[in-house]
């Protein structure tokens, strides 16, 4: 039988070397950098890379979590465990506080989430701690809007990105010079794909929040997707929760992250699912036995 490595090869270690180089540049070029930690697999990967970059020293910048209050409890639990495990400083700021202060207003309707609101809290946090560089786990393959994002992305004091002011990045030289009030968003895993991240997690035997693996959960069906039922989700009368075997492909807020039906209990099966989700789209190669993978693909299409 073909192993995962036969199909996708070993993790390209050069990616790790390049990301570590970027993290070391951040620590050296900026006075107050921070790592924006969401609890998702990409930011967990960043923490791992930061651990390696400065070993045997500690990670020389804090992990900053903007807690929307709508996170999965498993994510919060994992966040606290990881901070303890790595000895990194953890700073948590709450969207609820921004709402209480009247700086942000809760959305209404069935699609209400705090996804947009967290920007307010983030900008306040940047100002509070005078962070000049914020490290994030965005990847160019992940979202079309991010495909052209620089590794060092300069923002004005409103956190805004100005395409016209983006600096050309040549060779591996990173220009982090900024004016007072500006800050830089840094994306060390820009060139990783979703599969690269999973392959790295596998080879590094990294811990990830349990909700990435298959589990039983109360969900509702909406727009052809499975949504985790919670007190934060505004349900309509006909949206009756039922139990399903699911996992999460990405982890964000409970109100804006859809689950996929899946039996994947280990990382090899997760990688298989991602591969199959693509192959099943290639007409001739539909694997009928993998109904759960085909299902995942449907969710995906709805999701995007």
């Amino acid at each position: 039988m073909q192993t995962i490595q036969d199909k996708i090869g070993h993790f390209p270690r050069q990616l790790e070397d390049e990301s570590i180089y970027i993290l070391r540049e951040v620590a050296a070029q900026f006075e107050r950098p921070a790592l924006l930690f969401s609890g998702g697999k990409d930011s967990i990967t960043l923490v791992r890379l930061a651990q390696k970059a400065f070993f045997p020293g500690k990670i020389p910048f804090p992990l900053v979590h903007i807690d929307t209050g709508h996170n999965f409890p498993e994510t919060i639990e994992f966040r606290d465990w990881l901070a303890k495990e790595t000895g990194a400083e953890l700073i948590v700021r709450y969207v609820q506080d921004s709402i209480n202060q009247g700086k942000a207003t809760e959305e209404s309707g069935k699609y209400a989430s705090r996804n947009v609101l967290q920007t307010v809290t983030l900008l306040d946090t940047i100002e509070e701690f005078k962070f000049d560089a914020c490290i994030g786990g965005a990847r160019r393959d992940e979202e079309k809007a991010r495909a052209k994002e620089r590794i060092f992305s300069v923002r004005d004091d409103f956190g805004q990105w100005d395409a016209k002011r983006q600096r050309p990045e040549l060779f591996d030289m990173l220009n982090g010079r900024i004016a007072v009030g500006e800050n830089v968003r840094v994306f060390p895993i820009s060139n990783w794909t979703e599969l690269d991240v999973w392959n790295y997690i596998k080879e590094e035997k990294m811990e990830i929040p349990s909700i990435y693996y298959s589990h039983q959960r109360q969900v509702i069906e909406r727009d052809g997707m499975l949504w985790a039922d919670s007190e934060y989700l505004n349900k309509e009368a006909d949206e009756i929760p039922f139990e399903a075997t699911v996992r999460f492909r990405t982890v964000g807020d409970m109100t804006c992250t859809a689950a996929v039906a899946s039996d994947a209990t280990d990382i090899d099966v997760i990688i298989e699912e991602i591969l199959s989700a693509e192959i099943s789209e290639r007409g001739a190669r539909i694997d009928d036995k993998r109904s759960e993978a085909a299902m995942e693909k449907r969710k995906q299409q709805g999701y995007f």
Partner: protein
Amino acid sequence: MDILRIATAGSVDDGKSTLIGRLLYETNSITKDKIEALESASKRKGLDFLDLSLLTDGLIAEREQGITIDVANIYFSTPTRKYIIADTPGHVEYTRNMVTGASNAKVSLILVDARQGVVEQTARHLSIAAMLRIPKVIICVNKMDLVQYQESTFNAIKDSLAELVSQITFEGQEISFLPISSLYGQNITQKTSEMPWFKGNTLLGELEAFEYASTLAHAPARFPVQFVVRPMTEAYHDFRGYAGKISSGTFKVGNAIRVLPTGQESTIATIEKFETKLDQAIAGDSVTITLTTDVDISRGNTLVLASENNAPALKDFSAQVCWLDHTALSPGKTYLLQHGINTTKAKISQITERLDVATQTSTQGVDTLKLNEIGTIALRTAQPISADQYAANPANGAFILIDEFSNSTVGVGFVK
């Protein structure tokens, strides 16, 4: 598994997008629904080909607003290699983007339309690939289906480039020609029976077989110190490690090293990668090096092998530059020069010549270099930089120029 970076450039109608689409599709790197979305989006724009640049929304927004169109990154992989294509659409800011996109590339893909033959852009591509010392150039003669797959057409194109190729290529650069049809997927990942006269490899075959890592590992050893690791914890009380990414060459435990620019000498005690201790590390490796003796080393110093008596220290030198900014280069002005991770002030004393890359002719007596222009300058830095000649060691021979006031990256230079 390693990574191979490829640079492509050119306008949307030369079949480049279809070629990249083919590569993605035939290596299972793009889902069919994405291809279909691209097809319908391309049709909506009135195009009869797959406009792969539509893969990035950002690009569309930029195009609509008529602002900078620059480098898009496209990913695909095989079980042996991960490929990153830096694709630069050929528009107004063409040279700047081509140079930026190609700066990390080890392979340059140049497309020639079999019906049109060699055009000015072909020469421009080839020249920039040579200037950047890209070790492999693959010239794909595309749309062979539209010239009845004639060997004579292919050979005529090859012949018409022969003179330019012999004029500009450098020793060790591989240049190959491939007859392809990206529309029908011929000689991309699969051989075709339509061109039995062509005995060479497919495009993917060439990419999979190309080896470049060993040349980097055999270049002069250069290790710029990025960060000094001093944990000062109980377990690592006296630990002092120098963290960085090896630019070129090979470092081994026990090697005698010299520190630039101070000239101090020591010996490598350990080479560490997280919890693993290595016997040696090569170009591209991010490692932490410890030494047997206490020496004063800080960020910006470069470790070299004491046995390699070629340690560079440049203060007054000349360089080829490509200007990247709307504000032209002005001689006499002070810029910041960043070489690798090191920054120092630099004054450009004069522009000795401007080069027309398409025709390879140069003009003397110019007093400015504008956006997209390439020229040779003389400059002087405040502190010496540990750079090699770009031609001798590309990994340690390039620098960027930064405007002191706008903080923008305004130029890229190659030490002569």
